[in-house]
């Protein structure tokens, strides 16, 4: 997030796009509801499903999955056409406006409504006017923006909109991605990414290579070639180029798109090590399984969606037979020639501070008594509540001309419906943790597919009946839940349930820049299963 959770009360209007906030980030969802319901702030929701927030929205735009770029361009078009944008901000702080404006010309409300499958183009105008009238507007998004082949473009359009409105670098505004897991932010900050060292320092830069070689005192030449992403590495494993996989705290069999393909990759690899707390579907396919520790059995830090670094403490005694995860990695490293001598998580954090400029000023001691958000360059620095205050990292904010491109897989007579996936309130990701927590499993014990009542009657399916959902990649059976939540012709499935694994069905088409898979949309068909 460019901005902070505690700024939510300062926001006058919200745009929530591609985020089912009340189920996936419920505490933030409640804070937004409080502003809207109890304090009369404005809310615009853009989503293929009639999610809970949609019920409280001033404008709800139920778009076809995969058409975010079009709707965001539509808002920008209206702001420019009606002269409602922040001319001073655009002039002083941004560049690329003219080119962007040219591209936006054709994104008239009528054109956009057609792409997005909306009946009433005037609602796009109404939404844009709300943003202009009720500032600051804060934009919140989640995987509903990024999990598309056009994901990076969606993010750029979010930035375009907020630059046009002058909503960046001010409290209560911002472009605010909601991170789906507790430490996605931190894992990225720490360089657990194929192309960057900690603090996003590119590996393909020789200076960085030199800097890290010195910091890490390694005899080895550090590679200057960016590595593989997860989905690419699975392809490489099938092709025989990747031979060993070290899977730490992940369950790709359940979480990655195209499950069949993942299993094939794991079977192809010569050697697979899984380090986890339970025998996940992925661990079952491993050659070696190393039992690590659960979050409340260890010390360390995590960085939340607003860049706030927080201490985690050992709440319970670790289970006998398990080891600290950092210790396990260190033991393997030392057996392969390293001579690391960390004695606790804090030793590692002290090293992190030295090589990660944005974390340099953060110490374990400070975290016990202060709220610190990175960047925090030195120990006197209070941390950064919101980004881009006086200028953007690159100087001027770059407005980009982005064209809408349709998702990889369109519907056809054989697969006439659109499948989209996501999470539900009670469960998390692949269910390894929540489905092994009694109360959560009792509240939501089984998977389902959400079907609009029109579609249900077309296929002669009633609530609770078993249907099969098939895509070009596979087929699963589960109970139908007939509601008015999804858009007609769109079905929704949560991906937590191994018995009805949504990722048997999803497609692994990737965004060309950031390689995110297109989970949120693919073509499918429904058949009633006669018991």
């Amino acid at each position, binding site marked *: 997030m460019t901005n902070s959770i505690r700024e939510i009360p300062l926001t006058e209007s919200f745009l929530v796009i591609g985020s089912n906030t009340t189920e996936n980030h419920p505490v933030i969802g409640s804070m937004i509801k409080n502003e809207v319901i109890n304090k009369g702030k404005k809310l615009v929701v853009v989503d293929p499903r009639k999610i809970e927030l949609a019920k409280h929205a001033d404008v709800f735009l139920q778009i076809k999955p995969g058409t975010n770029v079009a709707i965001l361009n539509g808002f920008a078009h209206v702001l420019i056409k009606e002269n409602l944008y922040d001319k001073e901000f655009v002039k002083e702080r941004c560049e690329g406006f003219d080119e962007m404006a040219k591209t936006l010309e054709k994104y008239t409300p009528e054109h956009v409504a057609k792409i997005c499958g909306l009946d009433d183009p005037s609602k796009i105008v109404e939404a844009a006017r709300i943003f202009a009238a009720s500032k600051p507007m804060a934009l919140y998004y989640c995987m509903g923006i990024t999990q598309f082949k056009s994901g990076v473009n969606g993010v750029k359009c979010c930035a375009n909109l907020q630059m046009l409105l002058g909503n960046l670098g001010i409290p209560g505004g911002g472009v605010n991605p909601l991170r789906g897991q507790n430490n996605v932010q931190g894992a990225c900050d720490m360089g657990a990414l194929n192309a960057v060292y900690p603090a996003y320092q590119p590996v393909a830069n020789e200076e960085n290579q030199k800097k890290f070689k010195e910091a890490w005192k390694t005899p080895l030449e550090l590679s200057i070639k960016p590595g593989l992403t997860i989905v690419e590495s699975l392809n490489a494993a099938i092709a025989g180029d990747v031979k060993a996989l070290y899977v730490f705290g992940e369950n790709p069999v359940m979480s990655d798109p195209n499950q069949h393909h993942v299993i094939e990759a794991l079977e192809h690899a010569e050697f697979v090590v899984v380090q986890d707390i339970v025998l996940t579907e992925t661990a079952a396919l491993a050659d070696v*399984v190393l039992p690590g520790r659960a*979050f409340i059995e260890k010390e360390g830090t995590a960085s939340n969606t607003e860049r706030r670094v927080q201490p985690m403490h050992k709440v319970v005694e670790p289970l006998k037979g398990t080891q600290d995860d950092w210790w396990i990695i260190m033991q393997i490293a030392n057996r392969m020639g390293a001579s690391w001598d960390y004695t606790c998580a804090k030793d590692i954090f002290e090293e992190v501070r030295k090589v990660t400029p944005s974390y340099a000023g953060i110490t374990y001691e400070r975290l016990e008594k202060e709220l610190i958000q990175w960047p925090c360059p030195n120990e006197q620095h209070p941390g950064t509540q919101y980004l881009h205050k006086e200028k953007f990292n690159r100087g001027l904010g770059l407005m980009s001309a982005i064209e809408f491109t349709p998702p990889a897989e369109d519907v056809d007579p054989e697969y006439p419906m659109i499948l989209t996936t996501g999470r539900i309130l009670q469960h998390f990701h692949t269910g390894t943790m929540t489905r092994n927590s009694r109360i959560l499993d009792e509240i939501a014990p089984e998977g389902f597919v959400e079907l609009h009542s029109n579609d249900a009657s077309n296929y002669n399916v009633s609530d609770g009946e078993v249907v099969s959902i098939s895509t070009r990649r596979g087929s699963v059976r589960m109970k139908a839940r007939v509601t008015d939540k999804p858009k007609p012709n769109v079905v929704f499935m949560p991906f937590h349930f191994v018995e009805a694994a949504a990722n048997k069905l999803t497609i692994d088409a990737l965004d060309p820049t950031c390689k995110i898979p297109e989970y949120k949309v693919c073509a499918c068909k429904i058949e009633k299963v006669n018991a």
Partner: protein
Amino acid sequence: MNKIQLTIDGVEVTGTQGQTILEIARDNGFDIPTLCYHPSISKTGACRLCIVRVNGNMIKASCTEPAAEGAKIITEDAEIAGLRKGILEMLLAEGDHNCLYCEENGNCELQALCYRYGAENPAADFPKNKRQIDVTSSKGLRRNENRCVLCGRCVKACAEIQVQNVWQFDGRGSHACLTSDMFEKLGDSSCVQCGQCVQICPTGALSFQTVLGRGPEWELKKESSICIYCGVGCKIDFYTNKQGQLVKAIGNPDGPNKGHLCVKGRFGFDFVQGDKRITSPLIKRNGKFEEASWDEALDYVSKRFSEIKQASGPDSIMAFSSAKCTNEENYLMQKFMRAVVGTNNVDHCARL
């Protein structure tokens, strides 16, 4: 902001214009008892326990009374203590407050206040209100309205923090009670089991299913951590009992969540102490996992990684790091791949 000066129990204190007497008193360490007041919700001013003497003669509810410049406040004298005791005895009389079999024994603000003011058990023939007991319909919450003091905290917590508006007051006078969406059973309501109303309830009227049989409150130990589930990063105080079992999760007011949690943070911790955990390294031999010692497993893993690196180069090894693990662990994983294996093949599921 304008500063104001006032005297509390003879001590000069400073506050900000617009603050209530209670807020300034608490900021300065004075202990005024309250029941309906809670800092995370709007003010009710109904229970009257927070009464104080203002400028010698007036008695005011300190939770709603704005502090005035130069005011002289007495937080307690004989008359006020007597009034408080009377209020508490009325509350005791109305319900069924038997700490002996209450799961919130030791974690009850009503109980603590009764001790403090020496409130007595009501006369046995006092007519009791019989109200809703519903300890099974909700998977996560228990409700025994005979222990309810109608303070309204739950109503406000659900309306202002979770913003679900499940709880409503119903009936009048001695028939006043709470309903959940007008349903008799909480399990039939629109409650999403965030547990905020339980966390904020001052009595045993609302409690968590997880605390049953897990030892008394005064034996519990508390330590904070961060929720594992989503990027909000809610700060949670976890309570464990003498046997080291997890008992409950309470939202910490200093976190980004300001004390709030969702159902996952509230109830999603059983897996840590569940029976699915692996407790020994496993090596697959002839298609079957066999338990191995740590040394054996670590030797084997490093030998295989080294062999593969030797034979096919560092880029033939790939690591998946984890967005569910700490910064320190993620840092070490990428350092291992880059500085020891010699490849940039490290990624995690940020994209997934």
